[in-house]
Each structure stands twice: as structure tokens, then as C-alpha cells.
């Protein structure tokens, strides 16, 4: 289906799952941030699923969710977790693997 192959940017199929805790301002802000980032950097090849952990608590355990909000990259593998309201765009991109994280240890120190 994707003629450009897996290496071509923008052609990878992303499956993301966003866990939010209720419809708080922070939840809404997070959803907005995610939509904006996806529109800008991923394009149409993304499948976003938003889950309210208050409604589906069992999924929180199954997906090892601790913090809220939590964004989970289900595919491509490996799974990645990004926590927070996704307001720091470069970090989100790094977390999603859209831009490579070269020196992750330095990042934590910063």
C-alpha cells in the first residue's frame, strides 16, 4: 500500500492512544496539542484513539498508564510513552520517534 517503503517519512502508519482523565481543561488542551502535532508532522497516516481512564479503568492497567494524560505509541513498535499535556512539541516529536533522540541522557539532565 505504501509504495515509498517503511523508511519514507510521513508514510509510516501511526497508531496512537491517548489516555485522559475526564474532560478537564488539561485533557482538552492535550487533545488539541496532539491534533496539531499530528496534522503538522504525520499527516493522514495516523489513527488516534482517545480513552477516558475514568470510563475504562481496566485499560489503564493493561497499558501501564501511571500518569494522566499519557500518550501511547502503539505502532510502529516499540511502544513509547509520552506523559504530560504535550505542550512541548519537540519532546513529543522525539517521543514519537518522528525526530530521532540522539542523546537522551543529556536531555534528562537539561
Amino acid at each position, binding site marked *: 500500500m505504501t509504495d515509498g517503503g517503511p523508511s519514507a517519512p510521513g508514510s509510516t502508519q501511526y497508531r496512537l492512544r491517548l*489516555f485522559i*482523565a475526564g474532560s478537564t481543561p*488539561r485533557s482538552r488542551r*492535550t487533545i488539541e*496539542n496532539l491534533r496539531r502535532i499530528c496534522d503538522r508532522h504525520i499527516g493522514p497516516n495516523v489513527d488516534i484513539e482517545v480513552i477516558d*481512564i*475514568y470510563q475504562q*479503568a*481496566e485499560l*489503564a*492497567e493493561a497499558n*501501564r*498508564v*501511571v*500518569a*494522566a*494524560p*499519557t500518550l501511547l505509541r502503539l505502532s510502529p513498535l516499540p*511502544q*513509547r*510513552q*509520552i*506523559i*504530560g*499535556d*504535550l*505542550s*512541548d*512539541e519537540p*519532546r*513529543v516529536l*522525539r*517521543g514519537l520517534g518522528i525526530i530521532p533522540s540522539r542523546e*537522551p541522557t543529556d536531555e*534528562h539532565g537539561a
Partner: protein
Amino acid sequence: MLPESSPRELAKALTGISGFDDVTYGGLPAGRPSLVCGAAGCGKTLFAATFLVNGATLFDEPGVFMSFEERAEDLIANVASLGYDLDRLVAEKKLAIDHVRVERSEIEESGEYDLEGLFIRLAYAVESIGAKRVVLDTIETLFAGLTDAAVLRAELRRLFGWLKERGLTAVITGERGEGQLTRQGLEEYVSDCVILLDNRVEDQITTRRLRVVKYRGSAHGTNEYPFLIDEEGISVLPVTSADLDYGASTEVISTGIPGLDAMLGPGGFYRGSSVLISGVAGTGKTTIATHLLDAACRRGERCMAFVFEESGSQICRNALSVGLDLKPHLDAGLLRFEAARPSLYGLEMHLARMNRDVERFKPSIVVIDPVSALRGPANELQATLLRMVDMLKGRGITAVFTSLRTDGSFDQVGDLGLSSLMDVWVKLQDIDANGERTRTLYVIKARGMSHSNQVREFQMSAKGVKLVDAYVGPAGVLTGTARLVQEAEEQAATLRRRQDSERRKREVVRRRQSIERQIAELRASLDVAEEEEQVLIGEDETRESLLADERAALAGRRGAAE
């Protein structure tokens, strides 16, 4: 078993950990979080798991184990060593395990967040089984996985508040930090009850200790209590108050050795007394103790022997050589050996183990063989033994201690006397003379009873132990062959004396007979003389009367003539 805490006092949740509920007068504060902290490997997780398992199995309070370190499978495998079957409890919906894994390398942080996910998972687990108890083991791991410490602190505070609000009795474990009880200062948040576990190594021997650092609104024991983790779970040994208020029994129990019974006024020891059997190696301490055990088992009493130098089966085999078969007692469940090398645990641990075993087995006689094998600093030894004696006496258990130290002390340097703690002291001594060694036995003291002050020779044979009166004579105490030789000599001397005296008796009889003979002869000549005398007297009288007659006749005639 223990009464539920009364409403006017702080409600408490029993942990079911033997000893701990005594120290805290009823367990952890119910409906509140408690902090259990300590260094790595001190038993925090096992303590927490025991709290949950006992809650689920003994007190009908299901629990949630939220593990931040171990995976559920690892946890299940680890506590299986304590005999807990977590899988079964999970299947019975009495326990829920949730492994919260937070790996910094797998998580990117971007913007604000809170730990609502954790709350929801916990709430979900609590609701799914109707949990009353919660364990968070070790929540501080979150600080390693997430960078925003300020958020974490706020969220933890909220979490503990949330637990309280829901009335969940929670155990939160924390790793010991520098200068404070936990690395992240959790004690600031969990301030109702803080328990510190410790695992100290002294002289290469590890002793686990537990201390209730604080317990708001409740009295609690403040000491450090040794505790024990083994295949039977966790037990804490409360230091028994050194009250001397135990009852004194007047019931007398036989020692199993008739000769020894005879040396003690009432015919044995008082029940519940402490007996010290001291003597150097090979004097028969264990054999005497074995007799005691055998006698008690024959009476149908339960006996327990803590042995530090031999295995139980070795003692059984050795007992056969003096004609005692302990196997039937073992099979009947009346006798139990607990063998351990003294260096296996510290003193406290030995005491804790004994306490627990005694508590469970409920023996009426306990043998500690030999107590002198326990090593440690003198004052600690004294304290340990004192508590050991108190622990046994308080339960009315007859305690038999054997000691290699003949002078009754248990340390080479100090003069701290074990003997003064004892009610009865039987001393065994080897007497080495004439190229042979003989065992002798004294009763040095026996409180509250008259007892023989004599030394007895103590013989062991296939028929058992026999006490023989030792020979006490001008040459001192003789035993063994010397006694036999002396006895033979005495017999010969007696015979000689008897023969002598018989000979002298015969002589006297002879002399008496000869005197009697002389007397008879004299008496005969006396008779002859008397007869002669009578004859002479008779002749004289006859003559006198004749003369008188003649004179009368003459006078008559003269008168007629005139």
C-alpha cells in the same frame, strides 16, 4: 484470637504477624497508611505481603498489592518461599496484584501531568475485589522514573489522603535514605505509624530487628525487637517484661533416672522450674537430658529440644545406646528436635526462633543443649538467657539447660552466672584416677526442696543411667575400680575382724569355765569342812550333856545320904 480493638481506642487492623500485633497492641492503624521503611533486603516487601495475605486469609479483608519494583510473577515466586500461595488468593478474588512499571528511558515527559492513572488503577483494583488493605511497594521508585519531583510530592500527598478517605489500611514501603527514614522523606506524608526494619550484621551474624518509630494515638513497644523471616513467615519477638510473677507449681516430675529422683526430696523437679546440667564434654549431659525427655514423653507430655551440636537423629541414635528409644515419641508427635548451629543466627534470632517454635508447639518441657554453645557479648548473652528463662517460665515450661561450663558461668571472662537463674543445678564431673575416668554427679542446688548433698557415681549402660553411691572414706571419694577395690578390701577386713572377735569370745568363755570349775572344787572342800565342823559340834554337845547328867546323878545320891 486477639480481641478487636475497642471503639474508644484507635481502630487497629491486625497484621497476623506473630508478635507484631502484641508490640503495637493490635496491629496497624485501621483505615490509615503506615510506613514500613528499611534498607534493601530488610524484609519490607515480605512484611507487606504478609500483612495482605493474613488480611485475606485470616481477617477476611481482601488486599491490593501495588508493586513498583517487582513484577507480579516475581513477587508470587518470592513470597512462595514463605508458604504463601498468591495465585490462589488472586483466583479467589482476595488479592489483586498490580505491577506499576515506570521506566525513565521509555517515557518522554512533555508538559503538565498528574498521577491520575495510578489513582484510577488503584481504585479499579480496590473496587474489583472490595479491598480493605493496600500495599504500595516501593512507591519511591516513581521518583526514579519521573523527573518532576514537585508533581510527585503533591501527588503522593494526594494519594495518602485518598487512601485515608477511603478508609484503606495501607502499608507503604520506603527505602532507607541518608539521614532520614526514607529517601524521599515519605515519613512527612505518612505520619500515623512508622515502622523501621533493620538488618544488622555483627560478627558475621545477621539479626533482623524491627522498631515502631512512631504510632500516633497509640501506645506501642518502643524497643527494637528481633524478627525472623523463614519458611513459616515473619515473626516478631516481643521482649517479654522481666516480671517475676509466674506461678510456682508444686507438681513434681520425674527425671527418668530413679537414682536422681531419689536425690531430690520430693522425687523429681518441680514442674516449670529451670534445670541446669553442667559438665565438661562427655560427662553425660545430653544423656541425662534425653532421659528427661523420654520420661516426659512417656507421661504423654510434649517436649521440644533445641540442639546446637547434634542433629535430632544423632541424639536418637545415641539414646539407643543407653536403652532409650525416642523414635516412637517422635512419630507420635510428642517430641520435636530443632537443630541449628549456634552461628546460624544471632542471639536475638535464636531467641525469636525459640519463642516462635515454643508458641506453636506448646511443649511442657524444653531442652536447650547446650546453652553454652550460644556465643555473643557477655551482657547480651546474659540478657538473652534471662529472657529465655523468663519466656519459658512465664509459660510454665520446665526448662533443661545443659552447659559445658562446669562453674555455671557461660562466658570465659565474665562471672555472669547462669547458675543463679536456675532452680536446680546438677553438676556432672569426671574423676580421673588410677588410669580410669569415672562420671560423678552432684545436685548443687535445688530450690524449694531438700536434696542429697552426696556425690553419686553415674554409670551409663545399655540399660540406662544408674546412680551408685560413691565410696566416701578416709582416703576421700573413691569411684570406679578404686571403689570396687576399696569395697573388697573392706570386706576382707570385716571378715578378719569378725574372726578375731570370735576367737576372743571363745577365750573368755574358756576362762570363765575354768574359774567356774575352781569355784566348784572350793565349794566341795567347803562342804567337807562344814560337815566336820558339825560333827565336832555334835560330839561336844553330847559330852556336855553327859557330864551334866552325871553331875545331877551324883548330887542326888549325895543328898539322900545326908
